[in-house]
């Protein structure tokens, strides 16, 4: 029942929002809804830890043997926590920002939360697909109606691109469905299906491309910078902080469990692809002038590393990925909030027109400094243990190219510092430019939101075990699946 509640709260809050007339009530409704979601998630993590609270089995499309089956494992839990936190932080930091038709804006926005929560909980493949699309569709409307000047063409591209990915994923889900022993969509049936390695390969690619577009992984990323640039800030923030994780989640919960052999076989191809994508994105981030595109490429670089570390397919890598997925969400959220503040206060987001902000807004620059350092994985910030474990996972993988993969990842780390410090230098240091003359420091609500983010950054930087213990069982389960595959492959080699 508990897990249904998690989907129901934002869903109802979103629907209610459409019928609210006054702007103030719409805000209060959204904040209340998001706080309630967060409260429920936290209560679940702290007090209702047993599985029975987190599992739900209801009737749905019984004709196809698909049921309304939900289950939260450690990975789902931290993603749901990230999701709930993101909405609260965005509502708090955006408390004073107005949008036209704010009730509809926030209504659609909350619907995406419901969709994503469902995606993270679904334990039935058809249901997973259903929520996947449910999260996307309100996002299209958010981008196309509240976006920047190029929103129409950009949203169209975003729509076609991601929809094509979803369809590929659907095809492979339907094929798998036809191969299950009892013609069922249930997760267990999917995971138990034994397919020939040769058949796994093309299924794997269909499924993986669907997920890779979402993350996005090089070279399937070109929808992303445009969409991030043209979407309204809360939309962009959620897209990169949470929605990108849907791809990662699909990888870890679905693809790896269902098609482990092909996943194992193609790891040596995907890892360097994702890592060079990270380097590629870092180089592009270095050359961006627009802060939104800068953050977009930075996010893509981090997602590349997350994808690569997932394909390390060992316990260290999985734990690192799960920890870092949460951290990346928090950090990039902080970055988006700051970019939004800068654009709102100065009227520009071009680095070439900015400069000397730290004199006008010292509090903002302290927050930015901590968040930027977290983004480049400085020790004592949350990303350090995450990246340490991830790259350690990449290094300890069985692949004979492991050292080269690590070198690529290391290059990414260096370039990460290059573009991040370069941005700080251009925007915050130097002489004050015209655009910042009238800037005032941030207000209480922005301080609250950023303060919470910095708090999380430091707590998880010093004591990452807090999250690691939550995900260790889930990571162990995926790892076990690969242990079996590795053993089988090894036996085949010995024959």
């Amino acid at each position, binding site marked *: 029942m508990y897990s249904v509640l998690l989907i129901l709260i934002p869903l109802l809050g979103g629907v209610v929002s459409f019928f609210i007339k006054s702007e103030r009530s719409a805000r209060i409704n959204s904040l209340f809804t998001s706080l309630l979601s967060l409260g429920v998630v936290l209560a679940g993590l702290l007090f209702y830890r047993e599985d029975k609270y987190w599992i739900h089995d209801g009737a749905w499309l019984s004709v196809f043997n698909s049921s309304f089956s939900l289950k939260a494992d450690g990975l789902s839990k931290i993603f749901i926590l990230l999701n709930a936190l993101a909405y609260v932080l965005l509502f708090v930091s955006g408390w004073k920002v107005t949008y036209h038709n704010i009730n509809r804006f926030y209504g659609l926005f909350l619907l995406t939360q419901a969709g994503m929560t469902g995606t993270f909980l679904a334990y039935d493949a058809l249901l997973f697909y259903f929520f996947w699309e449910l999260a996307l569709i309100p996002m299209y409307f958010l981008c196309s109606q509240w976006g920047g000047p190029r929103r129409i063409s950009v949203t169209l591209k975003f729509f076609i691109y991601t929809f094509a990915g979803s369809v590929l994923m659907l095809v492979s889900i339907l094929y798998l469905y036809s191969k299950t022993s009892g013609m069922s969509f249930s997760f267990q049936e999917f995971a138990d299906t034994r397919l020939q390695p040769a058949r796994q390969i093309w299924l794997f690619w269909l499924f993986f491309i669907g997920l890779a577009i979402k993350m996005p992984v090089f070279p399937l990323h*070109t929808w992303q910078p445009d969409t991030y640039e043209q979407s309204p800030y809360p939309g962009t923030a959620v897209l990169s902080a949470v929605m990108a994780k849907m791809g990662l989640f699909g990888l870890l919960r679905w693809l790896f469990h269902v098609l482990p052999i092909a996943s194992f076989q193609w790891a040596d191809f995907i890892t360097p692809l994702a890592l060079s994508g990270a380097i590629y994105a870092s180089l592009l981030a270095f050359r961006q002038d627009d802060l939104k595109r800068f953050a977009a490429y930075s996010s893509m670089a981090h997602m590349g590393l997350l994808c690569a570390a997932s394909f390390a397919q060992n316990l260290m890598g999985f734990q690192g990925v799960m920890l870092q997925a949460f951290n990346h969400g928090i950090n990039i959220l902080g970055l988006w909030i700051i970019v939004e503040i800068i654009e709102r206060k100065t009227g520009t987001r071009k680095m070439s027109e900015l400069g000397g902000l730290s004199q006008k807004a010292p509090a903002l620059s302290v927050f930015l400094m901590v968040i930027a350092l977290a983004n480049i994985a400085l020790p*004592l910030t949350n990303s*350090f243990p995450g990246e340490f474990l991830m790259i350690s996972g990449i290094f*300890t993988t069985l692949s004979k190219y492991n050292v080269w993969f690590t070198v690529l990842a290391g290059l990414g780390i260096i370039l990460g510092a290059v573009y991040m*410090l370069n941005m700080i*230098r251009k925007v915050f240091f130097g002489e004050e430019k015209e655009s910042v003359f009238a800037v005032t420091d941030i207000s209480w609500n922005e301080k609250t939101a950023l303060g919470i983010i910095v708090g999380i950054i430091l707590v998880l930087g010093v004591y990452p075990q807090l999250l690691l213990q939550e995900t260790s069982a889930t990571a162990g389960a995926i790892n076990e699946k690969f242990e079996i595959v590795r053993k089988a492959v090894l036996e085949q080699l010995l024959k």
Partner: protein
Amino acid sequence: MQNNSPVFYLIPLLPLIGFLINGLGRRILSKTAIALVGSGVVLGSFLLSLLVFFQVKSGSTFNPHYFTIFSVDYLTVPFAFKIDPLSSLFLLIITGVGFLIHVYSAAYMHHEDQPHYGRYFSYLNLFVFFMLLLVLGSNFVVLFIGWEGVGLCSYLLIGYWFKNQDYTRAANKAFIMNRIGDVAFLVALFWMITKFHSVTFSDVLSIPNINAKLKPVDITIITLLLFIGATGKSAQIPLYTWLPDAMAGPTPVSALIHAATMVTAGIYMVARCSFLYNMAPVTQQIVASVGIVTALTAATIALKQFDIKKVLAYSTVSQLGFMFLALGSGAYVAAVFHVMTHAFFKALLFLGSGSVIHAMGGEQDIRNMGGLKQKLKITWFTFLTGCIAIAGIPPLSGFFSKDAILLGAYLNDPLLYGLALIGAMLTAFYMFRLLFITFHGEFRGTEHQKHHLHESPPAMTIPLIILAVLSAVGGWIGIPSALMHGGDRITGFLEPSVVTLKTHHLSHSKEYLLMALSSGVALISVFVAGLFYRNYKPAEVRGFGKVLENKWYVDEFYDKLIVRPLDRLALWLKQFTEPKLIDGFINGIGKSVQWSSRTIRYLQSGQTGSYILLMVISMVVLLAIQFFVKK
């Protein structure tokens, strides 16, 4: 004292608290309060470190364990400390010299606006905090936290005057060059993790474990990667160019970076890993070679610099080269000993140069100085002490530590000794060149500057005097046993922490000869420098001197080889690959779909006749396929 004694965690915690108080209260607290908090916490750490030092000296070691940072699979990384002779000695250097720099800063930075004053002290405290963490950690991860942490603080302090974009660029350069080394360091850690399943010193640095789990090639790779990390932090070739640029920060910061913290981290780390390095002869050779080449390169550059701080900066790079020469020769104690004496005289020299800059109203070019001896008596005298110490003239501290290094080099390879002797000669020469040009001869500055000349306030001169005393007598804990029986106390003290394989096989008479040679060379250098520069007249640098003045064009070389190509690659990716190639391909798919749907649309003409025709054609095709593709 027990492992759970609060003394241990208070040592790093106090500066952290100072950082928080000054950082958060920089707008509320008065300057006096800020200075008191900033210096007070470091003094507190120093007193506690003294307490710990005497405990360690009486033979105890401590391993306080606090909590588990993370534990995944077979790897458990605790937040724990290791307190032994090596770390306790570093604690004293960091907090002791660090405290003096804090006191000095209180006066030197007094003209800064209040919030910036607070910011400055908070960074300084944070710097000390990370450095303490670095030497206290009982495993490589805690060490690495401090390791990257000091990199961060140097970034913050070099870019302290953030309005100047040249300074913030220098700050970025420092951080990024350090990061390059840090990545190598991390790879070394991953290598250890796969082999040892641990990053704790007691597991990794034990000879039975190393023998059981590492092949010689593993040892070589791990030690080499760690050393690359050290070249970043301790400014060795090829990652040294950030250190001279780090002069962009306030002068006391240079003293902190060059003497008490940061650059000594690499020496500490290698000395800590002496077990590993002893078993990697190839790496040892590389360490020693890089050390001596760096020492000579930097010394030659220092010969022709005119910025008072730049001379000192290159001198640091050069002295660090000597320390690596010692490490590579297996003379770990000599390296650590030199870290200590160097901390005294280099802090003294930097703070002294700060006093000069202060008196000259911000002037740093020594061509515009001269004759300062009359007006700045204390500064001159203490600076002179520092110069004698660094030049290696007995009986000041530098003589003993440098002698230990030279001895180590001699035992390793007489060629290295010969090169090191040249290095020692150059050191004495450029230091006294600096002294003579700055303090002797005629005053060459403006009238206004001449009028303004004054000795610095006591908050600045007292640290100078203390450091001068330490520079003079600090070496007496390591008097070679050839000169005084039982004089070499530092070796006995450090013995439990660092393992030296090579033992002395040198007769006393030979040792006397080496000592006489090195002090003789230094004295001659001083004399020659006096001949050339006692009455210095600014003249254009010509010929080969130009190459030295331009630092062998290494910065330009890096710029051409790495920075600009990378920049151009990024631009090319942005302008061509991303929009034209990748996005162009995707858009191409979109366009071709549009085109084909436009074309196919013509088939739906709405005329029954054409539909029937199409149907017939299709059936024929299908039948044909059936016909040819028979099972």
